[in-house]
């Protein structure tokens, strides 16, 4: 028997919570295994204790064990970076500070130590040209992590439609406020989206490396037969353009580039 449909409400009631639950369940199941986290946390705490006693070699070994559990926590990378700095390995220290900053771009301690160690190395990393506007954009861009941005975008997106739904039934007194909320949320989302896009693009396509040896020659091609362009020193950060066998094409912040051996770099 064909009957006229009377089901939008039913669909709404059934599909909406289901989709949300599935999404949340998926996210929950994506995190690292609890056992690995437990082992890593234990090693991390022991390492912190060793560091407090200035036993940096032991602390470094324990931090390394925690990292080997495939746990990527900015605190772990930061503390390991400190340990490496104490052990007079500034290149490695910068590498792990960079890893920590990638996960938590807001952390002031990470930013400070990175600046501090960068000031100790031989090469001054050439900075790209900037002005007040580009610096402000850069500051806003680095003020949140990818996941924070993604959660915020979901929230703003949902807020827009929630306000729209409420505006359908709200009285004239509240409708204006709801529309204003919608517009603000839409503007915030509009401002957030390009930054998120570039962050994800950077995460997926850009890779950085740090020189780990005291001095490394940069060649004009992928081999020692090419001309030596310059010499870079431990701790210098590059953008990795591409990898060709044992050689990596790299680019400095000021646009200058060349080839260095893959073994001489640590990838952030």
């Amino acid at each position, binding site marked *: 028997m064909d009957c006229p449909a009377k089901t939008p409400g039913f669909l709404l009631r059934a*599909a*909406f919570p289901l989709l*949300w639950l599935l999404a949340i369940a998926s996210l929950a199941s994506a995190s690292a295994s609890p056992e690995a986290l437990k082992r890593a946390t234990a090693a991390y705490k022991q390492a912190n204790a060793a560091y407090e006693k200035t036993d940096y070699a032991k602390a470094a070994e324990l931090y390394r064990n925690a990292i080997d559990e495939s746990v990527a*926590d900015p605190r772990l990378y930061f503390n390991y970076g*400190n340990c490496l700095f104490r052990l007079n390995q500034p290149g490695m220290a910068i590498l792990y500070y960079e890893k920590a900053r990638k996960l938590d771009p807001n952390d002031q*301690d990470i930013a*400070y130590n990175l600046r*501090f160690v960068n000031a100790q190395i031989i090469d001054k990393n050439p900075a790209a040209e900037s002005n007040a506007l580009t610096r402000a954009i850069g500051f806003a861009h680095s003020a949140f992590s990818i996941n924070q941005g993604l959660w915020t975008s979901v929230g703003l997106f949902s807020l827009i*439609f929630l306000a729209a739904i409420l505006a359908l*039934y709200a009285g004239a007194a509240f409708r204006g406020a709801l529309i204003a909320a919608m517009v603000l949320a839409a503007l915030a989302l509009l401002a957030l989206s390009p930054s998120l896009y570039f962050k994800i693009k950077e995460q997926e396509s850009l890779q950085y490396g740090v020189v780990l040896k005291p001095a490394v020659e940069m060649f004009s091609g992928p081999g020692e037969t090419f001309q030596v362009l310059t010499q870079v020193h431990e701790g210098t950060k590059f953008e990795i353009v591409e990898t060709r066998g044992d050689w990596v094409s790299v680019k400095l912040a000021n646009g200058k580039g060349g080839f260095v051996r893959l073994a001489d770099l640590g990838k952030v």
Partner: protein
Amino acid sequence: MKNFREGIGATGARAFRFSILRCAFCLLTFAFSSTAYAEVTAEASLSSAQVGTGEPFQLTVQVTSDEKVDGLPWPQVQGLEKFTVAKSTGNTQSSQTSIINGKISSRAYFVTNFIYTLTAAKPGVFQVGPIHYAYKAYEKDLGSGNVTVVKQEAGLTSQPSLSKKSAFVGEQLLYNLRITPSQGVQQINLPPDLQKLIGEKFWFQRLDKNVEAKVVKVNGENVRVFDVRIVLFPLLAGKADLAGIPVDYQQASRGQRRRSGSVFDMFDDQFFSGGSVVNLTAMANPISMEVRPLPPGAPTDFTGSVGEYSLAAAADKTALATGDAMTLTVTIRGDGEPKTITKPKLPDLSQFEVFDPEVSTATAVQGSTLITTKTFKYVVVPHRKGEYNLAPVAFSYFDPAKREYAEAKSQPIAISVSQGKEVASTGNRIMSQREITDIGSDIRHIKSGSEPLQSEDDFLYKHPWFWLLFPPSPVAFAMIFLVRNRGRKLAGDATLKRKTLAGAQLKRRLKEANEALKQKNAKEFYKALSQAVVGLASDKLNVEFRGLTLEDAKVQLRKRGITEASVNEYEKVLQLCDFGQFGGGARDEKAWKESLDAAENLLRMLDREL
């Protein structure tokens, strides 16, 4: 020549005067106006009577007519075989208005220029012509002229030189690019990005902002040259190659005069006019040199300064009280790379508070050497009274002449410090407030929170389910919006509402019929069935069928376009229902099922047709 001058027309005369005034050398100019054919005149002119080899000049035959003529023939010109020839034409139009006895008349002229651009490869005196022009009845010899071609050397030479072929890392060198232009050269430009050409193995600086001409003797002759002086500081040890520097310039033919926009401020006093300009490039030869590394044994405070340095230190006060400030000025001067001059090594100033210095840098050119002077001004405040003899301030550098590390030192400075008033009068009171200053610096301490670690490199966007968080809210909005609109529409239209809800009503009545069937209640079953059929027809057609006789109901159905088959089925089902309710109809389940099937079949038919 006389005959030619007599034949010069108005336009030709203007051209000739123009030529005289601008060029200062006379061209041969011929012109004839025709009397046989008044509508057409022709005249010929040369842009230059003396040119250099390879320098282009022009022969122009100008044909003027009082009406527009398409397809004018080219003139016949002899003597062009010694030249490279390029031909072109150009057309212009002009008009002349005159008032005679109060009458205004206007006449238009059409001018066609036949232009021969000629270039001679060899020097000599060459005749251009005779030139003959013929068009219909008009025919004239325009004469001939001589052009003197002189040998012309290449426009510009550039010769690089280096003050030393071997130097230490960081030692100052002079690279001199001597540019010797010949006549007709203008607008010399060096490449804008010298750093690329000089390479990354050198730090460099131009010594002169503007390059001025100077006269030097070459093979006993005075020659005007331009020296581009660049100081270089090698950065890396080993063989260093300085690439050839291209020098762009413009070579003007005689007669062209242009103002220069280059750093070579030399062309205003030259005399060129007319002619054309060619862009050319002269390439200086590359130079190789050997850069030696600095020897081992550098002092701990050595910061890479290589050259000859001097240091001077002075205090603005030599007698002061505790708490008072004096300024210690240290000046380091030398010919090494400017950036390598860093803070000097100060003597023991433990009895003084020393603030970060104010630093200023200045560079100057002395002869062919770049001299850097860096000044450090320290504010120094003594804590305790006493007589102090400050040891010399020192700065370490490498002396390439002596091939050894050296130290530039100042003279010792004697300072007399007396007891300040504040301390004497206030006992243990703090002398004066001051800024909190860093004594040392270190990295920030490790993070030691007790919260367990988390894996934070698991990015949400990599999970497909994350993206499913987005669609629910717009879908919910769309559905709620549709439901709301539908509700509003139904509320305002009773007919539509009845029609829209007909399905739900039908469903309810059929449910009641099924319930009655289950309870084997024939009367209720047929009643529900009858109500379902009549109700659907009433709701869909918005006509009350209840209370109508069967015949009236059939009439209404036919009026609404219901097919005869459906009308007959309607009659059949209602008769079955009436019979079942009131006439003691079939009591067995099979008959009821058949009635139900018949009713459902009818309802489907009505639903389709309504």
